């Protein structure tokens, strides 16, 4: 590559060359547009300012602070504060109102269903499903069979204090004994009880099972909680066994398993985590899904 000292004009195009010459091939000097160049310089200047103003240079245990004092954590905190202010009016109204009043006031109902739906998606849907449809062991909240009651007050109580949640002294507690594991009933007796329970619900018992014996065993072992007719007791959290809705399944095998192992599901006490307005919104949301009483 040869360098010529004098900038020359390319005869063909009339443009100045850069003066670089590679075996007779010359490069035309077509500089970047000035506006582009100045924008580029401006970004460099901006970058220096940015580095000084914001956290930028990584250090061993953190980074430089920046004179504006901006921090991503404090930014989030202030965003949340802004959001709370934005919602204050409606959420305050929800916190102050009785759930029954909320449900019959269109504005409040809409707010509660929106806030409740959002809170449900975050807190409840992992167990109860996105639409509250539940799954085996997790109640379907759209249905009208409630273990602990389906009125607004019952639902609010359940959400606030949870079920079998040891950290909350007011939590709902019930204990189905493990009739099989604790050897209260023998395996063939359990089959008989299961047969009778299916009969109670209008289902056909397994073949060859003595349901008359099952009825006697049910009266002796189960009726104190579930009632003589199997219709359950909401005060004690004993499910109604005569409905079409089954929490753990209605097959003989499912029923036998429940009688064998006993116990029950656990639901956290949300009163410890959510504010009263959100609890009320959730109460109304769950109640309005369709099974509320």
């Amino acid at each position, binding site marked *: 590559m040869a360098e010529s000292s004098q900038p020359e004009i390319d005869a*063909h*195009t*009339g*443009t100045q060359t850069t003066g670089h010459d590679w075996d007779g091939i010359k490069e035309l000097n*077509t500089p970047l547009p000035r506006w582009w160049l100045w924008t580029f310089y401006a970004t460099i200047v901006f970058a220096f300012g940015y580095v000084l103003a914001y956290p930028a240079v990584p250090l061993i245990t953190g980074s430089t602070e920046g004179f504006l004092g901006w921090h991503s954590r404090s930014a989030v905190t202030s965003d949340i504060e802004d959001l709370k202010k934005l919602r204050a009016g409606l959420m305050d109204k929800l916190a102050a109102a009785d759930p029954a009043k909320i*449900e*019959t*006031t*269109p504005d409040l*109902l*809409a707010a509660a*269903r929106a806030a409740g739906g959002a809170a449900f998606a975050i807190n409840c849907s992992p167990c109860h*499903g*996105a*639409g509250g*449809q539940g799954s085996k062991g997790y109640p*379907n909240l*759209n*249905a*009208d*069979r409630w273990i602990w009651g389906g009125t607004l007050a019952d639902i609010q109580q359940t959400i606030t204090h949870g079920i079998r949640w040891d950290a909350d002294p007011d939590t709902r507690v019930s204990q189905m004994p493990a009739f099989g594991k604790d050897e209260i009933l023998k395996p063939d007796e359990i089959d008989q009880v299961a047969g009778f329970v299916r009969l109670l619900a209008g289902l056909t018992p397994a073949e060859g099972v003595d349901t008359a014996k099952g009825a006697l065993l049910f009266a002796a072992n189960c009726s104190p909680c579930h009632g003589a007719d199997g219709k359950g007791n909401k005060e004690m959290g004993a499910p*109604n066994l005569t*409905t*079409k*809705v089954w929490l753990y399944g209605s097959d003989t095998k499912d029923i036998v398993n429940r009688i064998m192992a006993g116990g029950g599901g656990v639901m956290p006490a949300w009163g410890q985590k959510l504010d009263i307005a959100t609890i009320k919104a959730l109460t109304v949301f769950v109640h*309005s*899904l*369709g*099974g509320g009483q």
Partner: protein
Amino acid sequence: MNAHLPNGTASHAVDVDAGLDDLPLYVAAEHVYSQRVHGFYRRVKWTLLVLTLGVYYLLPFARWDRGPSEPSQAVMVDLARRRFYFFFIEIWPQEVYYLTGLLIIAAFTLFLMNAVAGRVWCGYLCPQTVWTDLFTFAERLIEGDRRERIAKDQGPWTFQKVREKALKHTVWLLIAWWTGGVWVLYFEDAPTLVRKLATFTAEPVAYLWIGILTFTTYVLAGHMREQVCLYMCPWPRIQAALTDENALNVTYRSDRGEPRMSLKKAEAARQHGAAAGDCVDCGQCVAACPTGVDIREGASLGCIQCGLCIDACDAVMKRIHRPERLIAYDTDVNIKRRRAGEQPIYRLIRARTALYACLIAFVGLTMLYALVTRSDFGVAAIHDRNPLYTRLADGAVHNAYELRVANKKPSDRRFVLTIEGVPAARFEVVGAGAGDEADMLLVGPDQTREVRVLVSVSAPLEGSSTPIVFRVADSQTGKSAWTRDFFDSPPQ
């Protein structure tokens, strides 16, 4: 100038044999100093300028009484409440097809204008043209006409030049600011917003948009001008594909103008019976052109067909006592016919003009029909996605729906809800509140009410999915609207 026009008149100047390799890739834009003209088309343009700008600047202040719950601005886009008001019409977001229809009509009107009289839009009505005209007018008042401006720009910086430039840009910015300021008035009650803007209590977004539009107006109409038409606007390209030999375009009548020569030579030539064109090559048409085109090189992308060169040329023709309209609205067909010694003709009704007119009429009538028969209430249903159905304790099955009942009247209304299609189905409205009676829903003025409706049957139905109709009837008129959905059921 030719280098401006990559696909247009450039072809006249470029030696085709030389090939594309020899063309420079980029040539800096040359400033266009358009000269003031007087004449018919200039007057038409001033009139349209006053009319269009008048409408733009004053329309937000036009009032239209819609009752106490509605804004009283005649034309307003209420983004917060998602309504568009146009005098007696109020459009809801789901009726955006009216906008689609309007845009289709606008497109066809543009095509029709083009088939009849070329780029009328570009030359007379396009905001870019109108505002550029206004800006050029201000420029001429302050800095003088073409020659003076050229001389001043080439001359040294004097106190007067600095003062004039400063004044010009201030005036431009004021016009631009006023333009942006009016724009935001279309989105909020104009008198209220003006008061808020003046007391610096308006929403920041209003100031932001005024800023943005001030900037774009100042840059586009003050600095970019014909560059917008040449490089940014797609319409010249589309227009080139839509025009035909029967369309009236601003045309230099080469049959009459050529061979061009000076006035004296032409007179001499005529006395000898030799051919002499009327064009004296005075360059007035080029000087007047706001996009810097030489119309005598034929139709081009750069020509916005504003007709100012017609006025400029007519003035010269009058002075040299030759017939006017050497440059005129003319068609390619007529140029050929005149050359062949035939009478010029103009066919207004042609296949394409008739087609465009019919399409405009069709879309317009369809929209009119839709507007006249438009219902002032409606219902829509959304079935719960998850779960599709729920089995209840007693074996019954229920489906849940979100029902949206829209009341487009500016007063409270009650609607009676009924369901059809699912035999022996019962329904319940969740949270039927004050003002509702069982199946009667109260919907506020100009509002949509969303209610959750639970539909249940006592036992699973045959088939997994049964059509269901939700019908709401105005409790006073009895008129009803309905929507269809499905009722899902587990197997029997």
